[in-house]
């Protein structure tokens, strides 16, 4: 498997999609340590990565390899000790709605209805106008939550809550969608359904996605490219392309093509980053 | 061949054991109940006596610190501090106090009205209190419209209302309920123009840009004195009349000791018992001038009346008047009748003291 930058699908897809302009992310020489000055743990060691517009990239690795840390740095929640992250050339310094983060726990606002959760972003940015409400309702439709507008998060199932958190993010038309093991807390069946849902969503809107996971199957199914990471110190050891054509569906997991790619990626991990 | 199993040995052993435990439990219970029952009637009963939580020594704290005096009483005494007359009489009613000293007329008349099982056995002292006002109050008439402190429910309050009535000031002054130390603080900051309060507060207030208008003792002649008596639990009297008599004798002697030679040492010792400083004005000054009821006035029309007719005495009449006052104030809906009051007074113990029948130690 060679390293290659795949220019992914069409930015601003044809059907009047949500996303205006997916961004290009450049991670340059990012280093991050934790712990005391005497005994620092190097969580990320000089990481370099280029993510193309509209690409779906997975950060794959075991716990402790720094994948979540890297995602948080891209998101602006952490600052690197050295190096920088730029989005379309602009340096990332703080969190913002252009890089919306989806967490493993949906982090929904429990006191707001589903509709109000979705409308949180526009309200927080003081960008509410006459059709914000309609856009929010159609966003709920998009993620398959039609009819739940007046329900509270605690009345929704796990899968529904994650979809709601995605809807809440998407309404802000983020250039980048950052997802930190978003389906990790769901049961296997729901997870499968969510993966299918994400595949369809991405097929339609083609935003840039950086997706963190420790699950080889998930990475192979969803991503255009997989950045395999290792720990001690945290670094990217290999970039694998997933040469499985789009559009994909969940049925893919039974196909031989998929198994081949998955096996290759798994071998990459086992060989400590060498193919 | 079938084996026959003997009945489980455990059960058989348990039976007798259980019975033994039960007998022991019952025996212990009987012993405990019996002990407490006989304690009252045994040769040396326990009597719980109250004393006022204040640094100025009174006969109770003198008794507590003079073992020779205690030895004259055929009982074991224990002492508990109190701060409130009504609370002390409630405790007396329930039996946790045996004898309460120095309790004023309003709590006593209330207790009689509530059918408390008690007897008044000694007229102990008048209130050591008075009305102090600041110097802007130049005459009784000048008090109209001003605010004064009083300890609602106390004998001082009773005297104050009597004095106000006599001077036509009823309803013309604002009275606020305060404890003595709060009253002093309020007086010093000008929140109140004065108040009727016990010593040493009355003198302290008078000394601070004020003067004394009248005292509780002066109210004896005008009919609204504060009077304080010794009250004993009726059951205690029934079971241990000898001990109660000896107690009254000892208390009378203790009061005498505050005026006799060597009084300084006696007062200092008693004052220290309640946390007072030796030779301070609280301990020596007040303790040595406390307005004890004169022995000559203990019985008859100036005191507890006679055994046949306690109602003829000043004390009973003050109680009756207090009852009327409390009824008018709306705090005691059914004050006791003169008959009830008379029934609650037992002058026989006082008579023995007056007749010199106390054993000298």
């Amino acid at each position, binding site marked *: 498997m060679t390293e290659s930058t795949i220019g992914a699908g069409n930015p601003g897809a044809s059907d009047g999609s949500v996303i205006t302009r997916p961004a290009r992310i450049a991670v340059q020489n990012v280093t991050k340590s934790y712990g005391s000055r005497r005994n620092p743990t190097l969580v990320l060691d000089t990481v370099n990565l280029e993510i193309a517009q509209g690409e779906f990239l997975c950060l794959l690795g075991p716990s402790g390899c720094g994948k979540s840390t890297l995602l948080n740095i891209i998101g602006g929640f952490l600052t690197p000790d050295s190096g920088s992250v730029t989005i379309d050339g602009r340096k990332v310094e703080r969190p913002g709605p252009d890089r*919306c983060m989806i967490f493993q726990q949906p982090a929904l606002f429990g006191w707001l209805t589903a509709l109000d959760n979705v409308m949180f972003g526009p309200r927080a940015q003081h960008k509410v106008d006459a059709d914000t409400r309609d856009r929010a309702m159609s966003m709920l439709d998009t993620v398959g939550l039609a009819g739940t507008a007046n329900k509270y998060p605690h009345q929704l199932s796990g899968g529904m809550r994650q979809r709601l958190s995605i809807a809440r993010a998407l309404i802000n038309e983020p250039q980048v969608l950052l997802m930190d093991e978003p389906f990790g807390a769901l049961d296997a069946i729901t997870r499968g359904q969510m993966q299918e849902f994400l595949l369809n969503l991405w097929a339609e809107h083609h935003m840039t996605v950086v997706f963190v996971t420790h699950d080889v199957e998930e990475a192979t199914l969803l991503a255009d490219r997989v950045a395999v990471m290792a720990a001690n110190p945290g670094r990217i050891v290999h970039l694998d392309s997933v040469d499985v054509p789009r559009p994909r569906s969940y049925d893919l997991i039974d196909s031989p093509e998929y198994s081949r790619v998955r096996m290759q990626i798994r071998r990459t991990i086992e060989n400590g980053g060498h193919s | 061949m079938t084996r026959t199993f003997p009945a489980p040995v455990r059960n058989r052993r348990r039976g007798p054991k259980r019975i033994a435990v039960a007998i022991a439990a019952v025996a212990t219970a009987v012993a405990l109940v019996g002990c407490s029952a006989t304690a009252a009637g045994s040769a040396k009963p326990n009597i719980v006596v109250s004393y006022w939580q204040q640094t100025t020594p009174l006969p109770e704290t003198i008794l507590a610190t003079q073992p020779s005096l205690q030895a004259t009483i055929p009982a074991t005494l224990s002492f508990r501090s109190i701060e409130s007359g009504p609370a002390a009489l409630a405790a007396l009613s329930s039996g946790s106090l045996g004898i309460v000293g120095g309790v004023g007329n309003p709590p006593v008349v209330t207790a009689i009205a509530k059918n408390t099982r008690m007897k008044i056995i000694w007229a102990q002292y008048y209130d050591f209190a008075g009305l102090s006002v600041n110097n802007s109050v130049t005459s009784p008439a000048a008090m109209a419209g001003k605010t004064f402190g009083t300890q609602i429910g106390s004998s001082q309050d009773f005297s104050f209302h009597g004095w106000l009535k006599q001077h036509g000031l009823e309803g013309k002054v604002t009275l606020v309920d305060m404890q003595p130390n709060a009253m002093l603080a309020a007086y010093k900051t000008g929140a109140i123009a004065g108040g009727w309060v016990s010593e040493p507060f009355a003198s302290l207030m008078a000394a601070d840009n004020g003067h004394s208008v009248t005292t509780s003792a002066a109210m004896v002649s005008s009919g609204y004195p504060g009077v304080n008596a010794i009250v004993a639990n009726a059951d205690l009297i029934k079971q241990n009349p000898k001990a109660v008599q000896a107690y009254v004798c000892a208390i009378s002697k203790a009061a005498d000791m505050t005026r006799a030679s060597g009084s300084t040492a006696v007062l200092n010792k008693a004052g220290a018992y309640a946390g007072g400083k030796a030779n301070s004005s609280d301990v020596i000054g007040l303790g040595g001038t406390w307005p004890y009821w004169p022995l000559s006035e203990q019985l008859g029309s100036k005191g507890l009346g006679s055994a046949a007719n306690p109602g003829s005495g000043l004390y009973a009449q003050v109680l009756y008047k207090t009852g009327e006052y409390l009824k008018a104030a709306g705090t005691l809906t059914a004050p006791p009748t003169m008959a009830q009051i008379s029934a609650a007074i037992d002058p026989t113990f006082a008579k023995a003291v007056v007749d010199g029948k106390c054993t000298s130690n």
Partner: protein
Amino acid sequence: MSARTARDRSWLRRPLVSTASVAGGVVLWWIVASIVRDPVVLPSPIDVFGALVKYMSGPYPSQGVTLWQHAAASLTRIAVGFGLGSIIGIAIGSLMAGSKAIRHIIDPFIELSRPLPPLAFIPILIVWFGIGEVPKVLLILIGVVPVMIIATVTGLDNVEPELIHASRSLGGSERYTMMHVRVRAALPSIVTGMRLAVGMSWTSIVAAEMIAAQSGLGYVILQAGNYLDTSLIFAAILVIGVLGLLMDGILRLVLRFLDPAGAARRV
């Protein structure tokens, strides 16, 4: 038997059981009082009810006001003391949650004030503030503020960081996040603190009304205590109990509105 019917019945069951339990308690009380037969030690429910009725329309004491007015006087003091105390406590708590320095400065004072009984403050309050309504309200306030500070700080501290990250990620400024997410998420904890503070206020009212009061339920209890009028003491305590219950009920309703998820868990 459909699930719906079962749920309907359980909704009704709780208040029925509570009412039955209270009624049973009253009957037991009446039985014991009949045995004791001393209204000073234990008045019967009838005596207490009689006192309640008598003083609802009649003054206590004779120059005083009716029990309604006593209740109104105490309620006013508590409303002001509790209201002001809550505002101050929430404000200080918010500052402490936002700044470690402020937290370390104020913390020792809270710890020191907690074990102090309200009674201890009475002489100082009289000297500094006189004998009017101010020292009474302040006494209540002194009890309320530490409770509200602690409830506010713990509420703000315990907001899940993901909620704050989510808000920032969705475009909320730091200020917007503080107001609309952090404080809002902390509100249930703050309201729970208020429930505690209301209880404390009623506990302090007797001490507060020892400061030269001429009305109030605490004043009534103190007076009635002086005259061993146990029926009236019980009646006043009953009124305090009902008022406290009502205030707590209102706060629980507020809590339910603020925290829909919690309500489902709690019942």
